[in-house]
C-alpha cells in the first residue's frame, strides 16, 4: 500500500509555510524589518549557519551528530585570521587552510566514530573541546575588512557597488547558498556517497551485508561535514568584525536545530538538504527577527532549544503512530 504523496505529509512543505508565515508576521508588525538593510543583515548572519547545516545533515542522517562544528568554525576562522594578520598570508590561502583544517578534524571525528567505534556525541564533544582549545591559543583577530587589502573575500557573500553611505549591497551569498543546496541535494540523492549515507543511517548491518565498505563511507560522512565547517568559518569571518577565542559553543545548535526542523529523522535514514535550507532559514528568522518584534535576543536561545525538542518529538510521535498499526 503506497502512502499518499500529498504535500502536507512532507515536513519541508510545512516548514516552508512556517518560514513564509514568520516573514509575513515580521513584515506586518515590524517597521524595522521592512528595511532593506535589515533583510541584508539577517541574510549575512545566515550563511555560516546554512553551511554548518548542510554539512551536519550528513552525520544526522546516519543517526550520528557532530557537536564540534560550532567551536570548529570559530577555531578555523581564528587560525586563518591570525595567519593573515601576523604572517601576511594571502586571504585565499587562509581560506584554503580553513577548509583543510575542517577536513582534518572531520577525518579525526570520522575515524573515532566510524573506525574506533566511539559514540558520536562523546567523540565530537571531545573534538569540540579540542578545537576550542586550539582556537583559544590565538588572539582575537579580525579578518580584513572590505576596504583593506585581501578584503575581496567579503564579495563572495555580498557585492558592494559604490562606496560610502550610498553604496548598494547585494546579497549574492543567498544565491550561492541556493546553488550549494541544489548541488548537495543532488549529492545526497544521486551519488553513491549520498545513497550509502542514507543506507547506513537506515540499516547499517544490511548495508554491510550487501558488500559495501560501511567504515569508509561512515568516515567520509564526517569528512564532508568538516569540509562544510571549514566553509562556514569563511562565512563567519566575513560577518564577524573580530573573531573572539572562546566563542562558538552553542552555534552548532542553530545548525542542528535547523536540520531537525527540516525533517531529518532522529533515528536516521532520512534527511534533505532542501529541508535543512528551510529549517535553518526558520532558525535564522527567529534568531534575528525576534528583536524586531520586541523579544530580547536571549529568548532566541530558549526558542531554539524548544524548537529542537518539538521537531524531534513530532518525528518520534509520527513513528510511534505508524508502528502501532
Amino acid at each position, binding site marked *: 500500500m503506497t502512502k499518499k504523496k500529498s504535500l502536507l505529509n512532507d515536513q519541508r512543505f510545512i516548514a516552508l509555510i512556517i518560514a513564509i508565515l514568520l516573514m509575513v508576521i515580521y513584515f506586518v508588525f515590524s517597521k524595522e524589518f521592512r528595511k532593506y538593510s535589515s533583510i541584508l543583515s539577517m541574510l549575512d548572519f545566515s550563511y555560516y549557519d546554512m553551511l554548518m547545516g548542510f554539512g551536519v545533515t550528513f552525520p544526522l542522517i546516519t543517526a550520528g*551528530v557532530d*557537536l564540534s562544528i560550532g567551536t570548529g568554525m570559530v577555531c578555523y576562522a581564528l587560525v586563518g585570521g591570525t595567519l593573515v594578520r601576523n604572517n601576511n598570508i594571502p586571504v585565499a590561502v587562509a581560506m584554503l587552510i580553513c577548509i583543510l583544517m575542517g577536513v582534518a578534524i572531520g577525518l579525526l571525528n570520522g575515524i*573515532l566514530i566510524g573506525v*574506533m*567505534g*566511539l*559514540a*558520536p*556525541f*562523546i*567523540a565530537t*564533544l*571531545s*573534538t*569540540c*573541546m*579540542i578545537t*576550542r*582549545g*586550539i*582556537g*583559544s*591559543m590565538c588572539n582575537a583577530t579580525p579578518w580584513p575588512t572590505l576596504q583593506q587589502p585581501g578584503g575581496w573575500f567579503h564579495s563572495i557573500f555580498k557585492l558592494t557597488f559604490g562606496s560610502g553611505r550610498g553604496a548598494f549591497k547585494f546579497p549574492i551569498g543567498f544565491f550561492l547558498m541556493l546553488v550549494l543546496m541544489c548541488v548537495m541535494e543532488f549529492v545526497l540523492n544521486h551519488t553513491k556517497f549520498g545513497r550509502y549515507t542514507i543506507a547506513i543511517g537506515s540499516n547499517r548491518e544490511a548495508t554491510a551485508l550487501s558488500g559495501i565498505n560501511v567504515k569508509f563511507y561512515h568516515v567520509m560522512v564526517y569528512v564532508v561535514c568538516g569540509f562544510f565547517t571549514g566553509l562556514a568559518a569563511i562565512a563567519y569571518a566575513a560577518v564577524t568584525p573580530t573573531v573572539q*577565542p*572562546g566563542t562558538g*559553543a*552553542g552555534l552548532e*545548535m542553530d545548525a*542542528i536545530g535547523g536540520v*531537525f526542523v527540516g525533517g531529518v529523522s*532522529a533515528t536516521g535514514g532520512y534527511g534533505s538538504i532542501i529541508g535543512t535550507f528551510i529549517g535553518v532559514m526558520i532558525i535564522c528568522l527567529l534568531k534575528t527577527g525576534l528583536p524586531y518584534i520586541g523579544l*530580547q535576543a*536571549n*529568548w*532566541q*536561545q*530558549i*526558542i*531554539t*532549544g*524548544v524548537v*529542537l*525538542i518539538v521537531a*524531534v*518529538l513530532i518525528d*518520534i510521535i509520527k513513528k510511534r503512530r505508524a508502528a502501532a498499526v
Partner: protein
Amino acid sequence: MEKIKQNPIVKKIGFNRIILICVLILMYVAFCVGIKGFAAAGTKHLLNTMNYVYFLGFLSLGVTFVIATGGIDFSIGPVMFCCALVGGYCLNSYKMPLVADIIIAIVIGLVFGIFNGYMVAYQKVPAFIISMASMNIAKGAAAVFTKTQSQSWPLSTDPVNGWFRNIISVNGFPVGLVIFAIAAVICGIILYNTKMGRYILCLGSNREAVRLSGVNTKKWEMSAYVMCGLLTGIAAIFFVAAYTTVQPGYGDQYNNEAIAGCVMGGTSMVGGLASILGTVIGVFIISLLQEGILALGLGKDIQLIVTGIIVIVAVYADVTARRRKN
C-alpha cells in the same frame, strides 16, 4: 602483579582505582618538581584545586548516575550556571534572603533534571538531543532572567551573608571537603545499597531484561536524571561560594571535564558500571591538572585540549575493554 590484584583491600577499592590514586600522587609530585615555585607556594595550589573539586565533583557525581543508565547529559555546565545566575539575581535584585536563593538554585537544577529525565525515559527522545536543547534553554533562560548581567554572590566580608563562604572553609578547616565527602558517600550508598541504585545499574546494563522482570524501568531511568539535576544545583552553590561571580553565556567546558572525571574513574559510557570512588579520584586528577596547567602559565586552551584528549582515551579504553570481554 597477580598477587597484588588478589589482595582483598585492593579488590574492594578496585585495581583501576589504585592506579588512579597513584597517578594523582605522581602528578602532584611531578608538579612540585617540575613547576617552579609550585611546592613553595605552600597550600595555595591545594586550596585552588579544592575549590575546583567541589563544584566539579558534584557535577561529576550527578552525571555518573546518568551515564550509569547508558544515557548522557551535557547540559550540566550551562544548567549549573543557570542555577547560579538565577539564584544570584534573586539575591541581588529581589533582595531575597540567602537561604531562599540557595534553595531556588537547587530547585532549578531539579527542574532541569526532571525535564531531561521525563523526555529521555518516557518520551524516548535521544539523550544527546535533549542535552543539546536543555543546554540552550538553560543559557537563554539565565540570560533573559538576569537581563544578561553577571551575578555575584556574597564574599566573606559581607556583613549579613558573610557566612556563605563558610561552606568552603572556616578558619582554614575545609568544610567543603567534608560536605563533598559526605555527599560522595551518600551517592555511593544510593548506588550500591538502595533499590534506586540497583535498578539504575541493572537497567543500564540490560534494560529489556530488567523490564521483563516486572520493573518500572521508565521511573528509575528518570530518577537518575533527577539526581543529576539535584547535584548540579548543589554544584552551582559551591561554584559561587568559591568564585563569587558568574557570567551568563559560559559553562560548556565543565561538561567535558565532569564527564572526563567520571569516565576516567571507571564508569562505563555504555551503562551498567559505575564507580563513585573512581569519579571522585577522577575529579581530583582533573582539578589538579588544571591547576598545574595554570601554574605553568599555560592558558585555558591547553586545558581544553588536554581534557578533550583524556575523554577520547578514556572512552576508547572502555570500548576496547568491553569488546575484549565479549
